[in-house]
Structure formats: C-alpha cells, structure tokens
C-alpha cells in the first residue's frame, strides 16, 4: 500500500502529495508558501494522533513532523478533517466548534481553506 494509515485523511493527503507535483499544485505552493502540520486523530483530538506535514514551500506532503517549526499546526478528528478538506464544513466554523485546533501563526492559518486540497473523484 502507498500508505499504511487507515485514516480517511491519509487518503486525501496522499492525493495532495500527487497534486502538489502537478502544475496546478506548483501554482498553489507558490501562492500559499507556508508549512502546515496536521495532527489527525481517529476519534478524538489528541488521542492516537498521526502527524502529517504539508509543506507548501517545497510542495511536499510528509508523514510525520517537519524539520523545524511549521507556520501553523492543526489538530483534527479524521472525520472533521475530511469535512473541511472537501468543503462540507468551512474552517472558521470548524474552529468555532472546536473541531479544529490551531497553533502557530494566524495569518498562516487563515490561508488554510478547502481550495488548497484536490477533490477526490468518485468511481
């Protein structure tokens, strides 16, 4: 398997990885130019977290924490991350509801929107 994680988010982030290598993805990296870290938990924030780094400076997705400090760190439940990444829930709402926790620079966090994620196509 391309990734051993059973999280739904991992599937999206795998796709993100491929996306960032494409022209549209390179555009995106240029536009955002931040490093985000995602701590994703299967059921409850903070428990059994899996860490992913989306580096929109270099255009990479790495499993695990990044070297150095990310511009912003987000903590999510798996389900909520998928909701935000697919546009079902907007990030502000997620934050207000406590479904998303943020650490780091606010201006970096504000650039985290559903449009940075590629949309999964359906069979």
């Amino acid at each position, binding site marked *: 398997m391309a990734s051993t994680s059973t999280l739904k988010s991992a599937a999206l982030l795998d796709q993100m990885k491929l996306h960032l290598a494409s022209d549209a993805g390179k555009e995106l990296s240029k536009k955002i130019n931040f490093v985000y870290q995602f701590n994703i938990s299967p059921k409850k924030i903070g428990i059994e977290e899996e860490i992913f780094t989306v580096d929109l400076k270099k255009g990479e997705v790495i499993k695990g924490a990044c070297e150095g400090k990310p511009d912003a760190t987000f903590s999510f439940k798996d389900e909520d991350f*998928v909701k935000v990444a697919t546009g079902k829930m907007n990030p502000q709402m997620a934050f207000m509801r*406590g479904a998303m926790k943020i650490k780091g620079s606010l201006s970096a966090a504000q650039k985290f929107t559903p449009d940075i994620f590629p949309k999964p196509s359906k*069979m």
Partner: protein
Amino acid sequence: MAMRDIVTGGASCAVPGSSSSSNPIGALANTLLGSSSKTQERLKELPGASSVTAQDRPLYPEIDTSLASLPGFEYDQQHQHQQQFQHPNAAGSQFLQSFRSGDQGGFAEAWNETQHPQVGPHAHAQPHFAEFDSIYDNGVASQINQPTFDGPPQRVLSNYLHSFVTSSHGGIPFRPMPLPVLGLSEGDKQCIRDRSSIMARHMFADKSEDFINSQVNTLLHSLEIDNEFRAKGSVPGQYRELEGYWNESQGNLIPGGPHVTDGWVTEYNQNVAARGNPESWAHSFEQQHGANGWASEFEQEQSQMTSMGLSRGVNIPNLAAMEQTRMLAHTLAQNEDPKFQNSKFLQFVSKMSRGELIIDDNQLKSAGASGNWAEEYQHQYIGAPSSWADQFARDELSRGTDGWVNEFTAEQEQHGTVDDQWVNEFSKLRVDDWADEFEHQVGEGALGDNWASSYDEFLNEQVVKQRSDTSRGVYVFSDVNPYVGHPNPLKEGQELFRKGLLSEAVLALEAEVLKNPDNSEGWRLLGITHAENDDDQQAIASMMRAQEVDPTNLEVLLALGVSHTNELEQAAALKYLYSWLQHHPKYGTLAPPEQINSLYYADVARLFNEAAQISPEDADVHIVLGVLYNLSREYDKAIASFETALKLKPRDYSLWNKLGATQANSVQSADAILAYQQALDLKPNYVRAWANMGISYANQGLYEDSIRYYVRALAMNPKADNAWQYLRISLSCASRNDMMEACDSRNLDVLQKEFPL
C-alpha cells in the same frame, strides 16, 4: 481535591500538606484550595449561609475529618489531579470553584430541610435498591473501601459520593448500596446529577462511554435521582440562569467574588420557592411510576439500546412507518419547549468546554442525562416504529404528567390527519438532518460526546437546507412522491433509469421499495441510481437493504465496495469486496469464510490476483481488482486493471467512469477527462461523470470550466450535495463571489444562465 469538592459539595477539606508540591498540578491545587477556603469564609457572611442554624455549623468540620480520614484519600487526590488538571487555567478553576461555592449554601439549605419533619418515610425505597443491585451486580465482589452509611444525611451523602470517586481507581464498576433516606431536594439532586456526570467523564477518561454512563447511573439511582429528569424538563428555567451566570463569571469576575456565591444562593432559594415542597415531588414521582417502575423501564431501555442494531434490521419491512415515526420524533423535538431549554444548557456546556484548555475538548460537552435523553430519542426513533401507537399510549399512561406528552396530545388533537400535517410541518422546519445526525452518533457510540457539538451544528446550519451526510445506513425517502400508488413502480423505475432520468427513477424506485420492502432488485437499482446520481450515502443505504434481503448478490456487494471506497471507508470496502469473492460461484473456494473479520488488504489483493489468473477473461474480477487498488491508492495498478476490464466490456459506462476517477485521483486529469467523455457518450445523463468532469477541471486550476460542469450535474440532480460544495469552492477560486448567493440559495436558473455548457 477540587473534584471531590464538586462531588461532595464538600466544605473545603483543606489539607495543607497536599498543596505544597512543586509541580503545576500542585500549584493548581493550591489555587483551588486557597480560593475555596476564602469562599467558605465569605459564604458564612452570606444571607443564605447565615440562615444556617447554629446547630448545623459544627457539621462542616465533621465532614472534613470524615473525608480526610477515609482510606485511600491521599492516593485519590493525586490520582485525580493527574488525570484531570493537566492544563490548569484560571477560567477552569473559577468555574469549578463557582460550582463548589454555590453548593455550600445549597447543602446547608438541604440540611435544614432534612431537619424539618419528613412527611412520609419512603417505605418502598428498599426494594428499589434491591432491583438496581440485581441490574448492576456483575459479580464484582471487592469494593475497595466500602464506607458505612450512617449518621446525619449530609455525612452519609459525602461518604457515599466519596466511594463513587474511589471507584475510579481500578475501573471497578461502582456498586449501588442501600442508603438511608437522605431527603435530598430537587435542586440538590440536580446539582449532584450534573456534577457527577461531568466528573465521571474526567475520572473515567480512559473508559468507555457505556462504563461512564453506568457508573453515573448507579450513583444517581442509589441516590434516587432521576437521571432522565432533565429530559422531562421540569425545571427549564434553571439552565437559562446557569448560562447567565456562566457569562457573568467569564466576564467581569474577580475570582471568588462574593456575588458569585450570592448568585447561587439566590438561585437556590428561588428554586426552593418555585418548587414548593420537594418531598411532594418525590412522592408524586413514585406514585406515577411505582417504586420499581422506573428501574424496570431503565433496564428495558438499556437492553433495547444494546440490541438496537438488531431491531434496525427487523424494522426494514416497516420503513414507511419508520419514516413517519422519525418525523413525529422530529416535531416532538422541535416543538417541545423544555427539551429546547435543555439543549440551551448543553450549548452552554459545550461553549464552556471549548473555551477552556483545562477541560479537554469533548469531555465536558454533555452530561450523562443529556446522553440519556438522546438515547431515549433514539429509542423512540429506531425502537419500534410499528408499535409507536402502543408505545405512545403507554408513555401517556406512565408519564401522564410530563409536559411534552400533554403537548403532543394536544397537538395530535388539533391535527386530524396526523401524517400529512407532520410532513408539511417538516418541510417548513427544515430539520431533516436532525434525526439522522443522532442516528449517526449512536452508531459511532460517541453519543454523549458529540451531542452538544451536533446541536450547535443544527442551530447553525438549519438555515442551509442540506441533507446530512451522516445518514449512514438509514435510507432517507423523499417527502413528496408522485409514484406512490403507481400500479407497477418497479417497471416504471427501470424504464426511467434506462432513459437516464435518474432523479425520477429514484422516486419511482422509492415507491417500489415502500410497497415491497423485500424486493432486493428494487433496492439494488435504487442504489445504482443513487450512485450514478452522485449520492454515495443514499447508495450505501439502499444497497445495504438490498444486501439484507439478498446477502449474496454480487452486484450489490461490488456496489457497496465501490461506494465505501468513494467514501474513503477502507475497512468496510474491504469487507464487501471480500464477500464478493466469497459468494462468487467460481472463486468462492479461494476465500476462507473465517477471515471476514480480520481482513488484511494484502491477503485480499492476493486472492483476487489468483482469481484473475484462474479466469483472465472475467471482466468483473479485473473491476474488483481495480477498486481494491484504488483502496490502497496504487493508482497505476488500478488503471491497468480497469483498462483490462474495458477491453472485455467496452460499453460499460460506469467502468469508463471508474477509469476516469482513478486517473483523476492520480493526477492524470487530461486522461481522466477523455475517459469521462467516453462514459457520457454512452450515458449522457450520468450525473457522477459530469460532476467528476468538474472535479478534474478544478484540480487542474481551470475553475471557470469546472463551474460549468458542476452546474450541469446539479441541473440533473439538484440534490447532489458534494457538487454544491465543490461548486462553491470553484466559485470562490474563480473570484465569482457575485454568484455565491445563487449557489447558497441553490438557484439553478441563475447559475445555468451564467454558466452554460
């Protein structure tokens, strides 16, 4: 320490030694202890506290010593702090403290009350407890510290609550025990109930929700506190007050300011006044329910909760009835005032927990009682729809005095033809997703935790009419269906499907399965139609019904595998794809049946590769392999499998779409668009392919193009929620905020005019 105080309402058992530790936990303890003793001093000056007669005063020190001298006390203290106060902050401690400070007045009052002559001894209390013993006695013989329960009621209560706290150490189920009559007032009961539920979530943070609930319930029942009490909403006003109080304490309070306690005392006094004689309430409760009635009802409800999965299956033939029940429940929830009040309270609790670091996100959000309310709601919703009438009658008898039943009765009288009225009411209220959300949460087993947040969601989003994406497994029928009563809706549905009128076909097929709930073909085609119409949730729900009727249908199993893959649910998808292999007449022998519960992706993929070697000409095996490789995100292999299958089945439009989707997900968008075009040439009204086209353009950064395809898909199926969400994102990326309003109001006319394809 602080936690004990909350539970016992204990008058500050200040143990200096415990607060001298240098770690942050100790520091917190210092803060808490220090402030609590100050609070106590202030309390004595308060009007409420000063009404405590001289003879009562000595009781406080008495309790202190009794608590401190209990075995396990020191350990208890450390243990709790470690568990609960990892992130101390001022707001949190203030909240806890205010809870505590309010309590002191309350207990003093309660003690006063118990000094008054009791109207009638609860002679039947004993069998009550015996019954709970039998419910909860799981053979746990060793309770670590079993305190004795005698002496003045307040002391008994303290000891009893202390033993509840102690039970957290080993995760030993808390055993109920007979207590003397404590004469707790309604307000006290409520305090205890609220706090114990909150606390239990902290103490048993590592335990399951069920365990917590049973602990709390045991405690409450032993104290004769009705855990469902809040749900019946006898004192709705209190929560508003509580919320007000919280805001106040958040805003401008000096920690432990005197008016905090004033507030509590006043509130308590108001409650006493409003309530009249608390004993009479207890009496009337017992008269209504009988001494054991409540216990047995509780037991029954518990067992029904556990067998809910089963009962859901049983109820499939009653879907129509179930839908009506759901609507009924909707309206109850919507119109019923006290419950709404409860929800307000929950909202408050959830706000509180979100505003605080000290209380870990979901832990505090809802107390046990609210969970129980939801349970009850759930029970009524899923429970026995066919016997709703019976149940309603029974409820009316047994809970005759409850406001909501009366209200419901009144409403029922007003509306002669119930069913139609409800339907109308519903479409007005736009609460379609409510019950589904509950359903989903119960399914997750995270009911209590998520309750409050989903309520928020409900409040915030009821304006946006969107069917919840959480209706996992429950099919949601359309409100109005012109095909109901059609002589042969299945034939009509098949015809419409063939013509590509998918949304119409959905209605006809819904009519079919309402008429013949055991028609697996009806369900299957309905599922296929939903999948082609880009609605995987509904597709999964229909396919699950089809599978229940006909568990070995290969098309159904494959469709379930595909839909779960689309929803990124790997384990479920793997299970269905494996079942496909198991039930295949040719390859069934490859798949040992015992493996179904412990599937490893690699094993399943290996088995399918074996199958493909046995008969390389079988397109279906290659299709399943392609889906499997999608699941593992090995897109190159998936593409190869689908291409092989397409050589064998070149006119399978859904296969072209599968190929396209796989290519799109592996960022070969240009190829994907060609594949989708093939699919659309074969089936022009294939909504999923249109939506996928939009996705591919959007992923390439061609937002204007993607909008046109999304709009096209939505024109064919305005219920495709995913497409609406993606459209919104594309509009924002294309800087077409002028069209955002049309998108939010789902105004397709405007959108189609602006973005013709």
